């Protein structure tokens, strides 16, 4: 094989065709590093054309030979690179954190339904735990739609924090809450959000984080358009295996979500 042919293969020219969102799409790791004690960031460049991801969509990210993990998109740039924020939870994410630039991962996606919101207004984005992963992508999208944005970010310990502002649009007002009281508001993200909600009327609220936080957010935002972005065990991502069913509802996170209106999933959140 000639040099030019070879180059074309690795730059993806040969692979430009209709790639399904459920095929394994090869992608090269561009960067992969720790953001804080808890969070890591990985940026990958797909070798083929992919469908443009939209906020809150996710990819199944395959660490070859180890595991395949559902990771929501934290960013997507003009050169087609996709960023994910993740935390090490098991062998799959540990292996992912060890991948050096230029190694390969496999992607399936983008999966899930994009978050559809009306234009403009004021919005509050509340996040806690690993829910921070899609927040940069969500806030950039809302900012581009003309929203004035306030963000609440809660963590357990101050050393989980990283420079979230540098990943967002730059127009958000960021409120930090820490449970160890080492920075910002002393307490839970949901409590800080409640106090903001009692003072200001928002046109839109988006919550991403643990179930308990989302349940309390849904209860504090009755009458406000509120979306919650959920996490569940996603195995197939196709709506076939049923592992991400949000009991006791019959909704599947991977094809119906991951964003839902509160009323669609309140029974699930209350469980």
């Amino acid at each position, binding site marked *: 094989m000639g040099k030019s042919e070879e180059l074309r293969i690795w730059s993806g020219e040969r692979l430009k065709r209709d790639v*399904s*969102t*459920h*095929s*394994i799409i*090869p992608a090269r790791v561009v960067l992969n590093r720790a953001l804080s004690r808890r969070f890591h960031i990985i940026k990958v460049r797909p*070798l083929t054309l992919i469908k443009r991801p939209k906020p809150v969509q996710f990819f*199944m990210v*395959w660490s*070859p*030979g180890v*595991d*395949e*993990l559902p990771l929501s998109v934290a960013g997507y740039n003009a050169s087609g690179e996709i960023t994910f924020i993740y935390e090490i939870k098991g062998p*799959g994410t540990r292996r992912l954190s060890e991948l050096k630039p230029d190694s*390969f*991962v*496999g992607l*399936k996606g983008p999966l899930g339904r994009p978050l559809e919101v009306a234009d403009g207004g004021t919005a509050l984005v509340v996040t806690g735990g690993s829910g921070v992963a899609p927040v940069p992508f969500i806030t950039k999208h809302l900012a581009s739609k003309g929203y004035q944005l306030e963000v609440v970010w809660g963590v357990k310990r101050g050393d989980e924090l990283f420079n979230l502002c540098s990943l967002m649009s730059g127009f958000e007002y960021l409120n930090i809450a820490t449970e160890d009281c080492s920075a910002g508001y002393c307490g839970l993200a949901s409590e800080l959000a409640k106090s903001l909600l009692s003072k200001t009327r928002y046109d839109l609220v988006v919550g991403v984080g643990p179930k308990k936080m989302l349940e309390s957010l849904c209860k504090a935002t009755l009458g406000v358009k509120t979306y919650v972005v959920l996490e569940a065990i996603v*195995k*197939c*991502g*196709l*709506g*076939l*295996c*049923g*592992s991400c*069913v949000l*009991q*006791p*509802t*019959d909704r*599947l996170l991977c*094809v119906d979500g991951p964003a839902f209106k509160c009323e669609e999933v309140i029974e699930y959140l209350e469980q």
Partner: protein
Amino acid sequence: MSTLSSEADLSTAVAGVKLKHVLMNASGVLGALPEHVTRLANYGLAAVVTKTFTKRPREGYGPPIILRLENIGFLNAVGLANPGVGAVPQVVRRGKELGLPIMVSVGGSTVEEYVEVASVSADAGADLLELNLSCPHTMGYGLDVGSDPSNVFEVTKAVASVSKVPVVAKLGLSDNYIKSAGKALEAGAKALTLINTIRAMVIDVYSLRPVLSNVFGGLSGPPLHPIAVKVVYDVYREFSPEIIGVGGVTNWVTAAELVLAGAKAIQVGSALSSNDPRELIRSILGGLSEWVKGLEYVRLTDLVGLAHRK
């Protein structure tokens, strides 16, 4: 034989169980929990087939468990993940509450396990039992049973002889499929489900590894379809049994082909990953109805096996 009614009669029956139309899901698509049954019912299917239940819960394989192929097929190795036989009664109960016939897919690694899962399912009120004799990717739980006609006979006989519920044997592609089909019928199966997925694998050329965590899996979707048509055709020609046809049904044409080959009911599997499964089912039924009327028949079941006409 023209009909004045606007819709053709798409009703059918499998082993004496009446179905309002011919479509059900293939086992493995949802069907492990009551909520899954509700979802399948909302797709508009005439019956629900459960995920294969085994005696003990099985976690199944880790992801990747499924991928879509360049040739628009699917490859899966889920590993018979299921909550175990203890969860069968609540799944069956949900089907009953929704007024839908429910066929429990029964798995096992020994004859005794098949019998145990079958008897719990029958006691729970299952309308039909589908013996999974052909899972291609789980050792000791399927194809290694179903490709040996004497094993097929043994398992089917053991279940059918104690079961008060009609037994359907689900077989896959093997060198012996006609013989296995014959043995299942001889052992007391009232119908056959043909066919299961076919063993296949995919290797990623960048990371240089097989993609599925189980290395190999079962091929489904459109690439399976012409093979399923052939197996249904061959088995119908040999024994004319009641057949539930399954394999790559994505529209009314692929369903109609299986009917002409000899199937009186149809299962839809991979295609339920469509964006709108409810619309998919509606369009398959709509197409079948137009087809039956256009040929000036009244009932879809009048067309079962017609491809065999000389």
